[in-house]
């Protein structure tokens, strides 16, 4: 049946895929900003000496990492109404993505901060800087540099993860493919187009990650990743 592959139907549905692409981009973007906020808070808690803040952050990160995103998504989707919280599907989706990716971002940020050599911290102490000054002027600017490429890596994961939102009927890229597949009984056309749209986002972000590594001086231009 693939010999009947219908480009005309794809062209007919292009506006729908365009909307899906836009929706996937902004859903991912909002989720990523939310995930950054979650990640920074978790990381700050995790770096404290006291157990009172550290333990909840560690438990949260482990719980997120040991369970599938789909289960977390269903937990919120079927669970929130139970608590009397009725939210639109896309908000539930953004919430799930942000809470999930936040746990991974916390680990990435932590690794960045811990990669700064002790000598830097000690030099800051010797210069009479306070904790906040050391963080703001010495550690964070350097940590920021090494953190950018893995952050972009997590952004790629998040964009792909957002496909799961189609399962709670959020209108995005994968949903567009499902609609074409079920309306016209053309799964090949629907899902190949969907895959092509994700690849555009993937190669864009991957290029950006490569560029950032070169720009930040982490590796020379043209060398292998």
């Amino acid at each position, binding site marked *: 049946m693939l010999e009947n592959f219908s480009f005309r139907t794809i062209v007919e549905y292009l506006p729908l895929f365009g909307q899906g692409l836009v929706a996937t981009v902004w859903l991912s973007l909002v989720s990523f900003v939310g995930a950054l906020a979650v990640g920074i808070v978790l990381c700050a808690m995790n770096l404290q000496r006291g157990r009172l803040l550290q333990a909840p952050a560690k438990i949260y990160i482990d719980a997120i990492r040991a369970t599938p995103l789909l289960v977390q998504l*269903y937990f919120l989707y079927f669970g929130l109404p139970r608590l009397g919280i009725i939210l639109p599907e896309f908000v539930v989706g953004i919430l799930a993505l942000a809470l999930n990716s936040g746990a991974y971002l916390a680990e990435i940020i932590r690794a960045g901060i811990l990669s700064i050599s002790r000598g830097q911290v000690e030099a800051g102490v010797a210069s009479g800087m306070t904790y906040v000054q050391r963080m703001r002027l010495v550690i964070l600017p350097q940590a920021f540099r090494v953190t950018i490429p893995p952050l972009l890596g997590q952004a790629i994961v998040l964009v792909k993860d957002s*496909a799961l939102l189609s399962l709670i009927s959020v209108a995005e890229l994968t949903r567009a493919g499902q609609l074409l597949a079920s309306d016209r009984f053309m799964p090949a056309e629907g899902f190949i187009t*969907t*895959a092509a749209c994700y690849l555009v986002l993937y190669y864009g972000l991957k290029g950006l990650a490569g560029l950032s590594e070169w720009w930040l001086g982490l590796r020379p231009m043209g060398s292998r990743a």
Partner: protein
Amino acid sequence: MIWEQLQDLIRSYPLALRGLGMTVMLSLISLVLGTLLGFGLGVLRATGNRFISAAIGTWVDLIRGTPFLVQIFLIFFILPELGVELDAFTAGIIGLTNLAACFICEIVVAGIRAVPKGQIEAALASGLSLWQRMRQVVLPQAMRVVLPPLVGQYVLLIKDSSVVSAIGLTDLTRVGWLAVQRVPNGLLVFAIVGVGYFLVCYPLILLARRLERRMSAAHGEVKL
């Protein structure tokens, strides 16, 4: 109320166990096949000629660049059109094995590249064949770099297996989805489902961490 729902859920434990069994089975088969395939592809990509290496690289990129859900839909809905009859379980095995192979391929390539060039030259100078070089010199040293991310990757793949529930395979996630139609308490149902995954994944996460610590200690790096 919650107590009654919990009892109701506990009564349906055979279904939950079947779901957990399905998740473990699907993951286990795919991980074994995917590891074998991934190592093969990785060695080919690192040592084969430019054409083979580029072909594998492109395939890996295509798989890494698209959501697993879309890959599963493609396999489940398109292979039958090409005349291959398959059920959700087979589609899941194919999809997950392919995904595992692609990620493991990249891990293996990174491991092989981390082996110092002198080692390979020494093996060449000793007259070892390609197979001997790989098996006796390169891979044993590469394993140090490969092992920690490999176990971490297993955790990701086991979690990805939950996506196969979207095409109707009654794995642990699907069982939760079915249960929540009957017992309207999503928090309770999916917390239990989450515990099921946690029991499988958390030991592997701990193992990955342990390996990582040991490997970096063996390399003389100080971890803060």
